[in-house]
């Protein structure tokens, strides 16, 4: 077993810098998710760990070994590709055993491990089939089995669920989580789906434009986003932001003023008030708003209100009495507010 340590990784493609000096440590046995919008560099970072891309600067360690200059096959890793890359000319059995065959594992042992891998992913009935005879979900499981039987200490996954339909994705997500608990490999998992990241990761590294904005356990990320970007990316609906300016111990926005424990913040500074939808109540006093849409979602109702011209999402009880065009007041606890700098988007220490 081994952790991964990245120090000052830089990767450029021509004139674009895909990764701007990233340092990150993945602990032994940890499930780390690289999360971010497309083009943020998350897949590139994963491919650097895999050795499929060479880094322009920085070192990568797996365990105590510096693998920066090693080809992929000597890094002792296994990977699940987004396209699965399951070889179409091999049966499921040969596909799962491919890595072991390349490592010249003796035949009896190879067969036993293929059998185990197939059992772990419920693939036994399909061992003699070709990939073309499998469904997308089954092919994905072949790719996972092929990676797991390697017994490599590090497992890399590049959006392994993105090609599955929604229902299958839920199932496969739970399966992967269970597998990780059973085999406890150090895992780096790339996704752009924040729900997937929240549900699976021990920690999530949120990436944007080649840098890691924040790397923390999911709930910490959710409650204490380090920036406007993280708050807006994590959670469904995303965090609400209201723009305003500090003035004599109060926060003044468009059409509202809130008392603020402003001792730490100088007067006249432009700030963002960040608040989660489920932490807003409709009250007697607070930020005046106008109801725009009410969407009953079953367990709750999602209410969109306008504060000035800014839409704000409110998680209300499903039996809420507010109606469109009604004037309401939004109330929330000061402790739930996350303050961000309006220009940089960075969270203020609280």
């Amino acid at each position, binding site marked *: 077993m081994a952790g991964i340590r990245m120090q000052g990784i830089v990767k450029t493609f021509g004139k674009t810098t895909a990764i701007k000096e990233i340092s990150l440590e993945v602990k032994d046995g940890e499930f780390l998710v690289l999360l971010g919008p497309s083009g943020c560099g998350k897949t590139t970072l994963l491919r650097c760990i*895999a*050795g*499929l891309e060479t880094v322009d600067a920085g070192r990568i360690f797996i365990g105590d070994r510096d693998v920066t200059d090693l*080809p*992929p*096959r000597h890094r002792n*890793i*296994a*990977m699940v*590709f987004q*396209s699965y*890359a399951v*070889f*179409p*000319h*091999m049966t499921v059995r040969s596909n799962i055993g*491919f*890595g072991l*065959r*390349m*490592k010249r594992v003796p035949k009896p042992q190879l067969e036993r491990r293929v059998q185990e891998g197939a059992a772990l992913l419920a693939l036994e009935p399909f061992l003699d*089939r*070709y990939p*073309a*005879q499998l469904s997308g979900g089954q092919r994905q499981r072949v790719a996972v089995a*092929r990676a797991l039987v*390697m017994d490599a200490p590090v497992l890399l996954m590049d959006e392994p669920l993105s090609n599955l339909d929604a229902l299958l994705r839920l199932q496969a997500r739970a399966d992967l989580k269970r597998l990780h608990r059973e085999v406890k490999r150090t895992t780096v998992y790339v996704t752009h789906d924040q729900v997937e990241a929240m549900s699976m990761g021990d920690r999530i590294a949120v990436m944007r434009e080649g840098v890691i904005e924040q790397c923390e356990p999911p709930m910490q990320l959710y409650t204490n986003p380090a920036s406007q970007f993280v708050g807006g990316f994590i959670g469904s609906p995303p965090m609400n932001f209201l723009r305003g300016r500090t003035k004599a111990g109060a926060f003044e926005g468009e059409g509202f003023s809130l008392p603020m424990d402003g001792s730490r913040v100088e007067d006249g500074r432009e700030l963002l008030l960040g608040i989660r939808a489920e932490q807003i109540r409709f009250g007697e006093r607070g930020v005046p708003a106008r109801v725009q849409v009410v969407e009953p979602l079953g367990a709750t109702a999602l209410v969109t209100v306008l504060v000035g011209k800014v839409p704000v999402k409110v998680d209300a009880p499903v039996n809420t009495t507010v109606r469109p065009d009604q004037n309401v007041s939004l109330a929330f606890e000061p402790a739930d507010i996350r303050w961000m700098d309006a220009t940089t988007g960075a969270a203020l220490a609280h």
Partner: protein
Amino acid sequence: MWARTEEILPYALLLPSLVFLALLILIPMVQALLLAIQADSGEFTTAYLQRMAVDVNFNDAWRNTLLLIVLIVPLQIVLALAMALLVNSRFKGHQWFLYVYAIPLAISDLAAGILWLAVFTERGYLNTAAQGLGIVDQAKVYLSFENFGGLVAAIVIAESWRATAIVMVILVAGLQLIPRDFFEAADLFGANRLRRTLYVVLPLLRPSLQSALIIRTIFAFQTFAVVLALAGRNMPVIAAEAYSWYANNRDAHLAASYALLLLGLTIVFTFVYLRVLGLREAEVKR
């Protein structure tokens, strides 16, 4: 009205090429077939085929043709594969190699034959160079009916030089159709270059290899101008016999019989390639 046009349009667009193919290929082909099995009186006969079978050059012709195929085709496939893998590895300047390799494609086969004749003939470049370097004192005779090995070697070299590029082009195209992920997965799961080629690239390249083999074998059966230029009548091959019976002996029936033999052999080889290299049904179908 519009729907009718839509229905007719594809056929209308295909018609010119159909007419072209029928006039210039299909009808002459049927006529040639008939020439081989039909007497001038109109009755069907095997007399021409029998005469071909006892023709003095018949055994040499089919043996030489098969010998050349057995030597040339595998050599070309291996060379072309090596070149294609090299070009596909995208080293700096790889596109130049593609162009250089492809130059012989632009040269007609007779010209290629004459070009290599200039190399191998008694006072050719090869002897001049060898003498100049002091490797041999006297000019050697490579191309004579007494030196069968020399003739075969010269033809194999000339044919390989001339037509390997077409195989390479097909294989490069085939390699580029293989998603990169497969190469990367092979790398990642421990395959070195050789094993990646053997276990992943070659099997995935089967459809292209199949096309390349079929095309190359068909053309190798028809090898004619290069052989004629380098060996003259010292090395009978089927295509040259067909030509000779038609042009020199004025016997269209025997010429057609040789052509029929060529057709038969081509079909057999193509069938074998399709069976051996074809994708298994399970690999493509659900």
